[in-house]
């Protein structure tokens, strides 16, 4: 199991929100993460850093500080009062034996631990491109889709073949949407 990155603080069947344990320490956009039992897989579609208490506005405080790091050194409480949250779009789940490309019967529980998925699980997910359909219908932006595909290509054994095949799958999914298909493919090349 890879490193634990945070906990689920909001969940429904097609997405979940994760609060990261450490400020600014979120996996990059498009990463595949997993959580819960059965294991639910998701793709990071948005990363936000904001105050823990939404009623406390953030103001500029670094006018006299020489560097950005110095702001955090002079105000160590910021690490406790700000938090990094990420939104993940669900792309499948596993019952331990098989991976299913679809929404799980139930969303993950609140406070479920969240991990970055390992190569083995990513390989299993990438055997089929059905997850692309879910991503596209969940409202994922072009940047998220291309980032996800790029990241998967770096984790599977034959990344080049994966990218070629994912381009073909996208062409099927985006029939009649040539400009969008073109935009995503440009980002993959």
């Amino acid at each position: 199991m890879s490193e634990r990155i945070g906990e689920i603080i909001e969940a429904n069947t097609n997405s979940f929100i994760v609060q990261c344990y450490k400020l600014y320490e979120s996996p990059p956009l498009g990463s595949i993460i997993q959580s819960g039992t059965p294991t639910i897989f998701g793709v990071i579609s948005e990363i936000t850093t904001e105050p823990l208490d939404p009623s406390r506005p953030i103001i500029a405080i670094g006018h006299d500080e020489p560097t950005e790091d110095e702001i955090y050194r002079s105000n160590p409480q910021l690490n406790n009062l700000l938090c990094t949250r990420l939104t993940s779009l669900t792309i499948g789940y596993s019952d331990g034996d098989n991976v299913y490309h679809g929404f799980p019967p139930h969303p993950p529980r609140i406070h479920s631990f969240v991990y970055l998925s390992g190569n083995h699980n990513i390989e299993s997910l990438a055997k089929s491109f059905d997850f692309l359909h879910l991503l596209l219908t969940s409202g994922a932006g072009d940047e998220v889709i291309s980032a996800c595909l790029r990241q998967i290509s770096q984790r599977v054994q034959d990344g080049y073949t994966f990218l070629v095949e994912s381009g073909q799958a996208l062409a099927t999914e985006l029939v009649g949407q040539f400009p969008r298909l073109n935009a995503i493919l440009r980002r993959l090349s």
Partner: protein
Amino acid sequence: MSLDFNKTLVQMTDVVSRMKTSQNDRNLRLSLAAKIMKATKENDLKEKLSLAKDRPFLWANPSSELGTGHSPTELPEEYAVVAADGSHIDVDRHLPVPCSLINIGTCILQYGTHPNAHLSNYPKLYSDEGLYLTEHGTTTREVAIEGPVLGFKRTIDEVRELEKLISEIPPTIPTLALVDGSLVLWGLSGQGYPNLVRQEFLDKGILPILDNLKQVAQNRTISVAAYVSLPRSTEVVNALRLYLCDTNAVECKRSCSNRMSPFKPCDLPNELLDRELFDILLKPGQRSELFFTNSSIVREHYNGHQIYFFYINNGQEIARIEVPDWVATNETLVSLTHALILDQCYKGRGYPVSISEAHQQAVINGSDRQTFKDMLSSALTRQGLPTYTSEKTRSKRLAWL
């Protein structure tokens, strides 16, 4: 029916007009008072104050001249600031369960090579015997812990928490422990409360804590201070009043009040506040001389723990800082306290950031209070016990027509 703002505004306008009329006179008196304070010689002042007794107001005893300002020293490379603040829910007779809650918020901020922060809070619910102070060995003499008495308990809990927070900082790191408010339990002076209350909050409360902190300070660099924002104290103004006074004590007691005197020249500082004078006397960053309070509660009940104070111009406002005698008589600790409080105010934009964060941890807002009541009702329902509220509360919630 909501407040009639039209009727209120007419009265407000009248109040503000009166203030404007007296503003010029007040400014002139402030300026003159500040000049006199600056020119006052230490020995003359001490001599005059030493002869003063039995006046109808409280005055401060200066450790030096009244009007001198001191600039801050450099910050240490490594230092820590800890702070505690509290909030409470008082006993509410309209609730089905008599109980109260004290929530203590804490903040530890460590600066230097390994900056770090720890913010936390500790709510504690009191019920049954926890709601009363009972004299040892009797069941007849007891005082309910509610209203101002609950406030005393909260203050003691805040200061007690400082002890724990200090112990969490490595002993080699100079540490400032801060609380909001005063180290003097002003409310316990006079005959308003039985001895039982004074014993609980002084003899078994703040005094042993101050003893312990003094003990700890022998082996490591720590300072303890209470921070009063926008203070309304007049102790230094009253010291000036005494310095100027040539009326005998009997006449003074008959004619003067805590706020003003009808006689010249001691009517000069009438209704002026300490902070207004120090706003003229202190440049941004400076602190005043140290004074020690002449309060009867400290004199009679603090067992030799004299409480000193000084004013500081933090760049945004004049604040009053209270410190125990073992800090006030140690020049290094006074300088450390001055420099760290100033830095805290700078980082907190006019108010110490550590107290501000401790407050954020402690605060119980209106919605929290309602949730507390709802949780209490749910807990009763789960146990099959009746929940009820007073008809008065019900009628306030539902103002029917």
